[in-house]
């Protein structure tokens, strides 16, 4: 029965209006949403048919979450229309969306740990079925109907991740949801739990509910979805049926071009080690107050002229690795050596002065003073270096160090010109620039100090295609000039295209390495989920000794 409905529901996008209002649960037309400096969504068209599992895939930062926030009433689109059950609607708040039968399960659960499942479920929806026996009965009914298996009186803090997720689903159903949005639901689950979740989803679908499923894990998407919409750089680029596509095709749609074939290119890798990381360990306290190991025995060497790419699903320790190398967190063990200088416990400023350039993952939080003018951002991170400083007051040693405001301004102008930063001037605030231009400015700033090591964390995330190409060229040029580059990215295309050596990070460990000339995104992907380890394809000799 469900297969029949899925068959008719995966019509190509052009035939959207065809089936008529009755079969359409959600229809988005021409949705555009702009944020200061970026267009998060542009001309999004999606038709979701009732009683199907519809997957929305795309890279990190492609605009999936923004789109779902729009559908859930958390953001208002600047342009475009939303129709629910064939009827145009305007959603002002999540309450509107809930009233229209839309429910959302966030990636980060929104549950009160010290309350029971029953209490969490009725919280905020007391008017529906009260808070007592009627509510309990309703929860029982729902749980049985969809085989969620929840225990109403269990305390949420005693539940595991998968159980909490089912409570979230139950919460949405309890509020009358007919369309469920699941934001990256499998990111927190182990494979067996993923299977159980998918069984639940099929159950929901069989009961006529609609599921919108956001993911970037292609294998999962293909196994559960009835229809797939691919989002790239904020816009819908394709709607496909899972039967008619392959992970490779989907990956190509996601990254936007044919994946790079093995290219022969001139290697600039030397045998002079620049950054040596040995046995690095770090533990951190997570949000539940549990002490966890986030970096476990990390060792690698980057030579002059080498780009080392680190692949991995986000949250597997990449951010912590960058922080440990930058000196923003102090490692529990191991060493970090830059060009023979031991920097393991050195403060961040000394590391920057010693020649580490840093393109942070979150440029708004770590790379810019958003409310400060561009020329002040020229100084940020390099306040002790030329041309931003002119030494102590009156040349007296120990006197306050002066800023060279004129030189800093002039150099900001130079960066704007040389790195093609599109801005009305250097007096505007950093916040008013688009993401790509902010990023070009950061790249220009970091490269202006002739670093020995460049740390580039997601350097092209959320930037437009023109800026992306320029940033890639800058990284290539840096490599040619003998820099060591530590590249961290979720974009496998970028990793394979830029790196000389690839390592895969999983649960705080470097579990696999690969030669970017021969590895495929699928192979990398399987290592990223922990399914494969060791040497993928050909072993790269330059890093072989580290394992």
């Amino acid at each position, binding site marked *: 029965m469900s297969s029949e409905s899925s068959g008719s529901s995966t019509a190509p996008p052009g035939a959207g209006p065809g089936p008529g209002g009755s079969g359409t649960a959600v229809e988005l037309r021409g949705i555009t949403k702009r944020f200061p400096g970026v267009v998060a969504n542009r001309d999004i068209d999606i038709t979701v048919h009732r009683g199907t599992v519809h997957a929305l895939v795309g890279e990190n930062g492609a605009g999936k979450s923004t789109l779902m926030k729009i559908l859930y009433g958390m953001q208002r689109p600047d342009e475009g229309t939303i129709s629910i059950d064939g009827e145009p609607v305007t959603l002002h708040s999540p309450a509107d969306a809930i009233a229209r039968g839309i429910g959302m399960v966030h990636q980060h659960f929104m549950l009160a740990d010290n309350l029971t499942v029953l209490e969490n479920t009725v919280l905020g929806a007391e008017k529906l079925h009260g808070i007592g026996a009627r509510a309990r009965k309703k929860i029982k009914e729902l749980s049985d109907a969809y085989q969620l298996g929840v225990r109403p009186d269990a305390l949420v803090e005693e539940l595991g991740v998968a159980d909490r997720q089912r409570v979230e689903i139950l919460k949405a159903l309890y509020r009358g949801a007919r369309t469920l949005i699941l934001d990256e639901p499998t990111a927190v689950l182990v494979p067996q739990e993923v299977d159980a979740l998918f069984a639940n989803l099929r159950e929901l679908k069989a009961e006529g509910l609609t599921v919108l499923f956001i993911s970037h894990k292609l294998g999962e998407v293909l196994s559960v979805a009835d229809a797939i919409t691919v989002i790239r750089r904020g816009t819908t680029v394709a709607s496909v049926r899972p039967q008619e596509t392959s992970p490779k095709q989907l990956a190509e749609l996601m990254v936007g071009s044919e994946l790079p074939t093995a290219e022969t290119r001139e290697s600039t890798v030397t045998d002079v080690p620049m950054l040596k990381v040995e046995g690095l360990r770090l533990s951190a306290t997570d949000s539940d107050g549990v002490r966890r190991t986030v970096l476990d025995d990390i060792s690698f060497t980057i030579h002059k002229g080498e780009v080392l790419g680190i692949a991995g699903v986000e949250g597997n320790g990449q951010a912590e690795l960058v922080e440990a190398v930058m000196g923003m967190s102090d490692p529990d063990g191991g060493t970090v050596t830059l060009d023979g200088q031991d920097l393991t416990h050195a403060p961040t400023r000394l590391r920057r002065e010693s020649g580490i350039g840093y393109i*942070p993952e979150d440029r708004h*939080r770590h790379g810019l003073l958003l409310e400060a003018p561009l020329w002040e951002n020229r100084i940020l991170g390099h306040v002790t270096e030329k041309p931003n400083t002119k030494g102590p007051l009156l040349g007296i040693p120990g006197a306050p160090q002066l800023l060279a405001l004129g030189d800093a301004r002039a150099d900001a102008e130079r960066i704007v010109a040389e790195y093609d930063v599109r801005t009305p001037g250097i007096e505007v605030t950093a916040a008013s*620039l688009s993401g790509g231009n902010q990023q070009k400015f950061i790249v220009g700033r970091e490269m202006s100090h002739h670093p020995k090591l460049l740390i580039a964390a997601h350097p092209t995330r959320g930037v437009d295609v023109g800026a992306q190409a320029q940033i890639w060229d800058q990284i290539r040029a840096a490599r040619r000039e003998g820099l060591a580059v530590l590249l961290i990215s979720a974009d496998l295309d970028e990793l394979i295209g830029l790196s000389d050596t690839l390592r895969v990070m999983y649960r705080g460990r470097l579990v696999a390495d690969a030669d970017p000339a021969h590895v495929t995104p699928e192979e990398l992907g399987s290592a990223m989920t922990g399914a494969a380890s060791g040497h993928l394809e050909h072993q790269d000799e330059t890093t072989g000794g580290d394992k």
Partner: protein
Amino acid sequence: MSRWKEKFGVQSVLQALAAPALALLAAFVLSSVVILATGKDPFHAFFVMIDFGSKSDSQVWIINKAIPYYLSAAAVAIGFRMNLFNIGVDGQYRVAAFFAAVVGGALALPGVLQIPVIIIVAMAVGALWAGIAGVLRTTRGVSEVITTIMLNSIAGSLIGYFLSEDKLAVKDGNLFHTPTIPESGRFFLIPTDPDPIYGTVVVAVVIGLAYWFVIGRTRFGFDLRAVGRSESAASASGVSVRRMVVTSMLLSGAVAGLVGIPTLLNKSFSYGTDFPTGVGFTGIAIALLGRNHPFGMALAALLWGFLERTGIQLEFEGYAQEIVGVMQGIIVLCVVIAYEIVRRVVLRRQQREVGAELSARAGAGTEQDGTEQKAGATA
């Protein structure tokens, strides 16, 4: 490009003028409404204020009153630039002035030594008192807002304890005060007519210049502002945020320690039960009014003095004595609200323009796709 430049130029000028103009106008209108509501003529009130406030003895009074206000505002502003809210300037300056008065009253050194000793004691005690809040914040994560408020009341109790005859004070009629500072320890006066201006106005000017210079021109000031704007970005840029919190609290406290100096060395020459209180809170209002700007705060401090001076005269003219307090409140609210409104309007306009620009460019984006692929191929 040039079109943009022009636009932004006009915009920034408009923004700079719009906020104060809007605030003044609103404050003027609202104050008039309040005075009207009390059944009096607002225009006569404004006339009385301007007439009385511009008399020369009023001018001296206003300047002398503005000196501690300005110092207090500078102390608060150092915290504000760092995103720290030092509510404790009040306690800091009282404790500092008290101990400075005790030391000053006990010593009899030549003036060149006596005055610096008193000032250094005041700054050190103020810094120490504020530093407690800084250390608690960095080591225990306690909000400086809470600790400085509590330290205010501890300061009051501490002074109350020592300000008795068998401790550090002498009795004079019904009042207790610390031993009087000898002539050599007093600050000079500027002989103006009819009353002299306090020489400590020099201290305020020096602090204002130092504030401008350190915050705007030095590496330390840049680090401080960076932390104030974004702790995460500052930390990634190599600033030790914890050290900066403690340092800036110490600095704020040291400047707060100076707030009592004009009164102590130019007027009372001792710390008694009648020593002015509450100047620390006035400083918060003045720092807000002056937008943490060294010159703006000077204007704000003078405005405050003007309002207090002319308020006395309004009372004689039969206006309610609270009217000046109401006007001060209205002005601060209007300034804060006006700057926020203008900031939002400008931000929204910029966002719209950048957004429109981007979507226009995205529409013609096919050639850019081409460059991307070309760049990919050059790898």
